[in-house]
């Protein structure tokens, strides 16, 4: 599992690198465009995801101790918090569509002469948050599967590797968001 996570780190790493390079090339445009994102929604969603990591680690602990009910409850909580995160993300994206901030023929960002770099910012925004959200969807699928298996009583203190592995995956996706949040929402906020 750790080897898989290494490939994932390099996968996301490439996108982070693209972001770093273009942000360094167009600092002014990126400052204006990133300030258009809602920092409070972003922060709240970060908190939701951190809570889901907490319930996930409690699920792993319950599995280690062989506590079936606590395991199922914590998996459900993790799943629900993950779905809340995705729901908020969907709301944020729909706002971008309404504001014409989605890259394409209808893209328009007010108050900027050069629309190219602004489109670039939102391309990176959608690509990176989109890839992260895709990982969240996969994570939600894993939670559903874990829930079904735990309700069937497949897991015990002796056999809980799937819970452990899914937990590692969930925390990894959380860590990606821990970096996406400051890079997209925070670092240029003071310039506004």
């Amino acid at each position, binding site marked *: 599992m*750790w*080897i898989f996570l*290494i490939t994932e*780190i*390099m996968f996301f*790493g*490439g996108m*982070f*690198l693209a972001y*770093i*390079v273009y942000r*360094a*090339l*167009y600092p002014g445009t990126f400052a204006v465009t990133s300030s258009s994102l809602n*920092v409070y929604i972003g*922060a709240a969603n*970060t*908190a939701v995801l*951190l*809570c889901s*990591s*907490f319930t*996930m*680690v*409690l699920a*792993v*602990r319950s599995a*280690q*101790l062989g506590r079936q009910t606590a395991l199922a409850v914590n998996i459900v909580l993790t799943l629900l918090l993950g779905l809340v995160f995705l729901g908020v993300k969907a709301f944020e994206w729909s706002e971008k569509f309404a504001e014409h901030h989605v890259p394409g023929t209808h893209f328009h960002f007010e108050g900027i002469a*050069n629309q*190219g770099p602004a489109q670039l910012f939102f391309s990176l925004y959608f690509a990176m948050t989109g890839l992260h959200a895709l990982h969240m969807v996969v994570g939600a699928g894993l939670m559903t599967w874990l829930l079904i298996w735990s309700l069937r009583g497949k897991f015990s203190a002796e056999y809980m*590797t799937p819970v*452990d592995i899914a*937990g*590692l995956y969930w*925390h*990894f996706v*959380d*860590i990606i968001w*821990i*970096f996406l*949040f*400051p*890079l997209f*929402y*925070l*670092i*240029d*906020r*003071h*310039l506004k």
Partner: protein
Amino acid sequence: MTNHIDSVKTYAIVWISLLALTGLTTAVAFVDLGPFSVVVALSIAVVKMMLVALFFMHLRHSGKLTQLAMAGTILWLGFMVSFTLADVFTRGWLGVPGR
């Protein structure tokens, strides 16, 4: 993989710390620290990453090989970023206005 079982209290402290750091990084983002805004935001992110990795992902109880592999990954990621940036900024053909 994980033989050691941490207490709920340990996890709760880590969780509260993570939430507090999220609040801190959000609040500090509104303060003008010049170029240090990026440094502070990413430093807090790295601390949060370490908390999640060491406690929630049990990396502090993991074997030396796993820890070494993760440290190596971060190192290579650093190489990738630093060498690419060194390349981009020592060539004159990028950053043309209007492109």
